[in-house]
């Protein structure tokens, strides 16, 4: 038996999910809106299809409506208009307990007055599951998450990481149709966060369950999500695989949000003469390869925004027509690489992936070169990509 099947077999059946062979737990949001009073429109016309067993990460800056969207899926917030389907059922007005979802909260939300065991058993006891089955389910979940020694403790006696593990356990013992994660790693320190990220990824591989993961950390979103949904001001900006949102951002916001360090944006003027298209800014003149040239040629004589990812800039002359001189302002030694904060004309440009051993200091003049085909161009008014 595959590990997942073996694991699932240990859990009480909560519905007919395993009985009927079809994909049951797809989530579909259509024209979803949420207003708070008449002034605040938190979620605007969100359309999102999440396939069964897919792991989708909702990411965006704080206040972008991602948590509200998640809470609407959970049933903790009323929806103003639109439809939410889980499986084939419209759940718009179903209370949370009837949606067969489980949720992990940012602050763990463990029942403080109960032992870890009772926390894990709570959901199953509500369903009147026999104690013996509950014990088996908890035993397996505890084994997976390394909770065996903690079962008799109270949540207050656990560390943050352990508490979050219990919260995960509480979700998986119920074997729900959908897992919802509301910034579950934000309260952990950086090292623990990376560990838990791997743990969540491993859990999803072992128990493939439709999951929606809300975070403001794009690294979490990129590493965990099969697909990433980027939101801003209540609207979805882009839906795509991590590679798609990184490689082909749908607009300037996505381009700046995804990737660390963030993409450099420089205002440039497009010049097209004698079949050669180039972009110019103070202290910078790059010749554009044939791939981008056609689209840019239309904007000849106009100002556009050029995006360059720090990791796509390298030290040295590089390909002809793609190099420029930069004045080093800050050197950040990371041990594995150097981050350079440089100034080119009026623009400040960050370059990453500079080998750690490079002898470089503040005030130095260096030659940086961009990679052909790795430049992004955006219309300054619409902020949409030019391609």
């Amino acid at each position, binding site marked *: 038996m595959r590990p997942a099947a073996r694991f699932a077999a240990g859990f009480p059946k909560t519905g007919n999910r395993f009985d009927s062979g079809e994909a049951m737990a797809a989530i579909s949001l259509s024209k979803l809106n949420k207003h708070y009073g008449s002034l605040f429109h938190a979620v605007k016309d969100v359309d999102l299809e999440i396939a069964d067993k897919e792991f989708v990460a909702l990411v965006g800056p704080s206040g972008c409506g991602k948590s509200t969207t998640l809470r609407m899926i*959970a*049933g*903790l917030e009323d929806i103003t208009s639109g439809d939410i389907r889980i499986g084939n059922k419209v759940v718009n007005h179903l*209370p*949370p*307990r009837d*949606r067969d*979802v*489980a*949720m992990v*909260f*940012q*602050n763990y*939300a*463990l*029942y*403080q*007055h109960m032992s870890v065991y009772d926390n894990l058993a*709570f*959901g199953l006891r*509500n*369903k009147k599951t026999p104690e013996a089955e509950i014990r088996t389910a908890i035993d397996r979940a505890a084994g997976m998450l390394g909770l065996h020694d903690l079962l008799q403790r109270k949540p207050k006696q656990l560390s943050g990481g352990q508490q979050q593990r219990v919260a995960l356990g*509480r979700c998986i013992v*119920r074997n729900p149709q959908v897992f919802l994660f509301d910034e579950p790693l934000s309260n952990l320190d950086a090292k623990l966060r990376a560990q838990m990220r791997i743990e969540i990824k491993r859990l999803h591989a072992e128990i493939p369950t439709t999951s929606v993961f809300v975070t403001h950390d794009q690294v979490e979103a990129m590493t965990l999500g099969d697909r990433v949904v980027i939101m801003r001001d209540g609207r979805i900006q882009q839906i795509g695989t991590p590679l798609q949102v990184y490689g082909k951002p749908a607009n300037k916001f996505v381009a700046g949000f995804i990737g660390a360090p963030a993409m450099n944006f420089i205002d440039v003027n497009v010049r097209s003469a004698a079949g050669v298209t180039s972009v110019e800014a103070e202290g910078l003149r790059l010749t554009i390869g044939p791939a981008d040239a056609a689209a840019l040629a239309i904007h000849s004589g106009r100002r556009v925004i050029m995006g360059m990812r720090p990791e796509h800039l390298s030290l040295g002359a590089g390909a002809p027509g793609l190099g420029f001189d930069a004045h080093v302002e800050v050197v950040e030694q990371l041990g594995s690489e150097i981050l350079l904060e440089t100034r080119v004309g009026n623009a400040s440009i960050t370059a990453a992936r500079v080998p750690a051993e490079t002898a470089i200091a503040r005030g130095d003049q260096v030659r940086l070169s961009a990679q052909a085909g790795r430049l992004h161009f955006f219309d300054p008014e619409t902020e949409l990509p030019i391609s």
Partner: protein
Amino acid sequence: MAMVNRPQFLPWLPPIGRKTLFALAVAFICFAFAFPVLWLILTSLRPESGVYYVHRGTEFTLASFAEVLSDERIVAAFLNSALISTLATVFSLLVTVSSGYMLSRFTGPASRLWFGTIYVFRCVPYISWVLPLYFVTQSWGLYDTYTGLLLPHIAVHICFFSWLMKGFFDGIDPSMEYAAMIDGCTRWGAFIRVAVPSALPAISALAVLCWLFTWNEFLFALILTGNRVPVITVVMAQFVTEMGLRWNLMAATAVMALLPAFLIALFGQKYVIRGLRI
């Protein structure tokens, strides 16, 4: 408590002098608070002839206690006070806990109306409730009955303590209740099974405060009761008669009335402190 980085009191004094001064100040404050109680206890142990010379003489007796305890009216008053305090606590907690929860978690019109109502009632000076209450209990035939005294007490508790309870629930993270709702509870179930158990220290603290409030309450008891429902605070005051003051009996009754309150405060203080810290 850390004394670091704090401007020192009387910096020219040597540390030992400061400590002595501090100890003396603490002793003085404790004495100032304890003195009336000590005097009361002393008075209750003196024979009737000695009550005006409490500080002189070495004659002590328990006769006042015996006399007080042989008075059926006083014994009845004790029982009544205990009963009314307990009932008022139980009934008011039933409302106060859920009302505090509502004020903390819901923002709808019903919640706002309720908030406004108890706010208005809280703003009315306590003493000005008495006369209207007297007329109401009279006209409803509740004057000098348990119910006639219980209901106003419950009302006062609800108005005064819903606020405290709201504060307690504000300090409890609502996501626990959301988790419970997702785990299969109704809103009400999440309240009963998750929010209330988490607030138990606070609820215990509130129970102690409610009980002591009613046990010590004098004004309502004086105006709203007559001979049929004697309560301890009123009976105590009735030792002031035209024939003179029975200080020793009054002191003995007062000492006995202190005891339950003292015990409850003693055993409940742990909860009160923990509850108020939530």
